[in-house]
């Protein structure tokens, strides 16, 4: 019975022609969904994992305007999703395998169906950059993690190394204090790059250590992580830091590989757009972390979403 019902749903999807398909349900995609819905565009958001994307892994967002006591990442995402649905934007959870974007009618290919639309906004975001060190792959899940809010609890009273010293790294270091005080930051630059307020907070924990201008070369252990070997660049000295867990926060890489052949990307793989968020392809726009931009935040992603939806509306009016 269940099988039959699901097949019918798939058929319905591919029979429909949407005005707009938004690839990605993070803050950029969801905001685009709100604006497109209010513009009475027939809109579908396709999200592969969870509403909010990267922002859903943040326990508390303190710099998103409108929430002076902060708002949970997951909570904010759920509100945005409900808001988009309120204006009749549809949301489905599935993975986009590829997209044919050059024609007048755009086709977005899922594993078992194809969705057609007159316009597409790519808001697929970015994924955490992986640690480049010996043992990084071997110990993934066995001490190395890219999400402290997910896995941090498994390291209660253990020794933790956090790689990176930007906002994410410092936020997670603050988050981890509830589980363990043995926290060491290893940062390749000679200074912290996080917001000043976060720097103040992390420095208030006396047991937290910092190795700046230091690069991790090797992750060591037998079945799980036992230590990391790092090079202090200026002194050309190698040290071994005992650790049970390594949390990596060294930036992100864009998720644009499913469209790369047709779309203009910069040298790092981010999608190039003009100020109206239009890509080199007519009817295709990009919003949020996946596009070339200086400053990636939830609020700038949301702003992109609104602008992209507006650009789609103008594009469709002129068709």
């Amino acid at each position, binding site marked *: 019975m269940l099988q039959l019902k699901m097949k019918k749903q798939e058929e319905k999807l591919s029979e429909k022609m949407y005005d707009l398909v938004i690839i990605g349900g993070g803050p950029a995609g969801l905001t685009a969904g709100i604006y497109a819905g209010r513009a009475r565009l027939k809109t579908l958001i396709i999200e592969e994992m969870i509403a909010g994307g990267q922002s859903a892994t943040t326990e508390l967002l303190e710099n998103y305007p409108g929430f002076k006591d902060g708002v949970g990442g997951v909570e904010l995402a759920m509100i945005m999703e409900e808001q988009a649905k309120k204006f009749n934007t549809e949301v489905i959870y599935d993975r986009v395998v590829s997209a044919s974007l050059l024609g007048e009618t755009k086709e977005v290919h899922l594993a078992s169906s194809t969705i057609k639309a007159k316009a597409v906004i790519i808001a697929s975001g970015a994924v955490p950059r992986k640690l480049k060190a010996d043992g990084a792959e071997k110990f993934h899940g066995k001490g190395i993690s890219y999400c402290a*809010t997910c896995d941090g609890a498994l390291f209660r009273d253990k020794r933790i190394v956090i790689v990176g010293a930007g906002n994410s790294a410092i936020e997670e270091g603050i988050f981890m204090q509830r589980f363990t005080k043995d926290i060491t930051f290893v940062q390749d630059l000679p200074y912290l790059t996080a917001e000043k307020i976060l720097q103040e907070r992390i420095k208030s924990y006396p047991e937290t250590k910092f190795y700046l201008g230091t690069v991790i070369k090797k992750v060591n252990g037998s079945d799980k992580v036992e230590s990391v070997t790092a090079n202090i660049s200026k002194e050309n000295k190698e040290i071994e830091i005992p650790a049970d867990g390594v949390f990596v926060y060294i930036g992100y890489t864009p998720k644009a590989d499913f469209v790369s052949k047709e779309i203009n990307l910069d040298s790092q793989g981010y999608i190039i757009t003009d100020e109206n968020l239009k890509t080199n392809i007519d009817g295709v726009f990009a919003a949020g972390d996946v596009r070339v931009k200086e400053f990636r935040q939830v609020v700038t992603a949301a702003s992109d979403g609104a602008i992209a939806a507006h650009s789609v509306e103008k594009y469709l009016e002129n068709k």
Partner: protein
Amino acid sequence: MAVVKVYSTPTCPWCVRAKQYLASKNIPYTDINVAVDRNAAMEMVKKSGQQGVPVIEIDGNIIVGFDQARIDSLLGIA
């Protein structure tokens, strides 16, 4: 009826997703919070050979992470 356990932490979005998915398919499961239950945390690490959440156990079979295809196949859903 399959016996389903989800080892999770309260701040893990993929755990939220996995539980949402099971609920959407009307599959009853036991939610085990490894952030507060240390014995359960150790049990999870032993069963899955790793320290990431979620770990989903379906009739004794272990799935690490929200792997929808595997969940579907173990539950006999299309």
